[in-house]
């Protein structure tokens, strides 16, 4: 799907990180439209502004006319801005947002992971083959078990955990259940156009469908303390086969337990 030249021109100007998820096109489309609106308004105002400054400078126009502008076109400009905003809101932003927060895919068709943020790392928890997350509790917390996973729970036996490493298969929806152990963090996958605050005491679901393979970084967008600047993780979108074999290898490494 190649964007039309006008969209492409603005995309080239904006230079956002390469988009690699299914809904990124919606986000970028709106981003492009809003920036076109801004550019047109700013250019229009600026041309008028400069023209007026030149034409009505004291040297060229020594006696002011107190009546000012006639006509109603300022109303049309203001009305036009309102109409443009309503269109952007009603036809682009609200539907796109709704598809983010209302239209979650079913868990069966998705890769489901938990991501637990803490100062200053991302803990990732895969449910394993049984599709069920094992029990976690603070009493099990340790340096080697930052999630506090209870390995004696049957559901936990095949659970794979990683730190700062999120692997995902391409072309399949991903549901991330995001939570935090301590502060507010913000889970950011720039190329997926995903950003979600991890709010203490709550679990925030996020979903997206990666459409390209690649190796990128997880960023934290919310000031979370001294190490905020280095709260970086890695995520990679793999082919389904690569992902399956990675997960199998991680699961196999659990076997001795």
């Amino acid at each position: 799907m190649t964007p039309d030249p006008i969209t492409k021109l603005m995309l080239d100007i904006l230079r956002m990180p390469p988009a690699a998820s299914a809904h990124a096109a919606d986000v970028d489309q709106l981003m492009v439209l809003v920036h076109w609106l801004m550019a047109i308004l700013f250019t229009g105002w600026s041309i008028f502004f400069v023209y007026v400054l030149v034409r009505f400078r004291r040297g060229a126009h020594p006696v002011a006319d107190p009546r000012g502008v006639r006509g109603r076109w300022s109303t049309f400009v203001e009305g036009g801005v309102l109409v443009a905003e309503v269109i952007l809101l009603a036809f682009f932003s609200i539907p796109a947002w709704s598809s983010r927060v209302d239209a979650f895919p079913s868990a069966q068709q998705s890769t489901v992971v938990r991501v637990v943020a803490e100062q200053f790392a991302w803990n990732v928890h895969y449910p394993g083959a049984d599709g069920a997350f094992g029990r976690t509790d603070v009493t099990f917390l340790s340096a080697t078990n930052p999630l506090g996973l209870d390995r004696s729970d049957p559901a936990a036996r095949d659970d794979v955990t990683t730190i700062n490493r999120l692997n995902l298969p391409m072309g399949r929806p991903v549901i991330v259940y995001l939570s935090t152990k301590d502060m507010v963090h913000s889970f950011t996958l720039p190329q997926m156009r995903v950003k979600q605050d991890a709010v203490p005491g709550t679990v925030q679901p996020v979903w997206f469908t990666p459409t390209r393979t690649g190796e990128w970084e997880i960023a934290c967008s919310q000031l979370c303390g001294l190490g905020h600047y280095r709260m970086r993780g890695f995520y990679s979108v793999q082919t389904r086969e690569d992902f399956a074999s990675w997960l199998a290898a991680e699961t196999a490494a659990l076997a001795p337990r």
Partner: protein
Amino acid sequence: MFLKHFFSTDHKVIGLLYAFTALFFLLVGFFLIVILRWQLAYPGQPVPVVGPLLGDANAPGGIILPEFYNQLGAMHGTIMVFLGVVPLAVGAFGNYLVPLQIGAPDMAFPRLNLGSYWFYLAGGVVMLSSFFVPGGAANNGWTSYPPLSDLSPTSGQTWWLVGMLCIILSSLLGSINIITTIVQLRAPGMTWFRMPFLVWAQFVTAFLLLLAFPALQAAAILQGMDRVAGTSFFLPSGLVVSGRPLDVSGGGNALLWQHLFWFLAHPEVYVLILPAMGIVAEIIANNTRKPLWGYRLMVYSLFVLGVLSFLVWAHHMFLTGMGTAISAFFQATTMIISIPSVVILTSLILSLWGGSIRFTTPMLFALAFLPMFGMGGLTGLPLGLATTDIPLHDTTYVVGHFHYVVAPGTIFALFAGIYYWFPRITGRMMNDTLGRMHFVGSLVSMNAIFMPMFVQGLAGVNRRLWDGGMEYAHAQGVLSLNVHMSIGAFALAFFQIFFIVNLFASLKQGRVASANPWDATTLEWSEDTASPRVYRDPYDYSPPGAPRDFVPQYVARVVSSGPAEG
């Protein structure tokens, strides 16, 4: 002798106290960010010149630690907003000009007015002192989001709360005073729609301060209880910090703070911008020599802005887990609130049409305000739409957006106001050449600082990063902009020297000004302040048949003398 001014109840003296104190704090806040910008441009390299003065706890060997970096960022925001811009816009300009422009003998409650200044000063002293407590000043962003701020080990955060309570009390007293003065003390003939636009702007601003600040007052008390009395208003159950379960009862809600904070802080944005619009409107009417275009419409827009500003706060919280309905509501209010801003901005630009424009120094700043504020307003659109907020939230795009509103926006308007009313205050003009150099230098360097922030933000670079984003791969392509922006900041610092020299030198050596050097119409330029009476609209410039190109509000009859002079 000097100290007696600190006990004066004269609104003009209090206004000047506010002005000088606020200018001092603007300088302090600016100094903090210049140090911070050094770290962003050259992470981990010792700060030149001032580095050794920062203290070993903050910057060993002159290299800024992340702890100190976060202090600089949090206190820059706090000081600029609460101790710099608002006190200058409302405390100084409001105090000095509102009674004069409506022909009141003083503020309605002169002693309360002095009390308001004292609370402000106390808040400022508390904030500055907090840099010297063990652990340093508050370092959790100017937004002080819990749990981070609740659990922050430095007592500086508690000092921050105490300082905020002082500032809130101050602005509470100040806003009661301004509203009462405007309602009660208008001179005979000064009807509501004969009030200068600046007075209207101060009136609406005062209501915002009066009704929005209590939310932060409540929030600060709750956070203070969390920090001092061990409550958990903002701490949910089950928190684990640094591997240890937190020993509190829990059951709180971290988002409660964000709601209360932004319930204040979004109206606060309009507190920052409305007085600036007021100042710009005065200067534009005066320097175009014609009435404001759409004066009434602008006044109505102020009210719409004021009311709506209480209904948009959660657009700062789109990413905290918001459903479609609530996000749609806040997106809609956010889009609607842009319209009255567009109306005011358009009216100000249209006011130029047909004028005879004098490019005086105050007019240059006022004119630059228009596109700069326009830039700030427009870049608010993608942030106000929840979908485009996803990639932009908490990036430097946001920082660029609100700095365009406040720095080359509001602060330019405040500069304009200082150049414009300086002769009214001192009887002398400020130097024009220095003023123009200050203007050009500031305009160029401010754009050099803030424009690249949009580029970085679109590339996904987050704000509040100690190393300026060096850690991240997606930031590499735009990392060098950090150096450009910082050079812009250093240049901006340099160009403020012109202003500071001009301000102090002109006090003694400025050209002596006549009583009404700008040929202005509003009441503050009247020589007879004993018992003012008002006869006409605020901007009676270039009326047909008048002997000169302006008729002041205090002039009863125009003596017709044939065609108007030039």
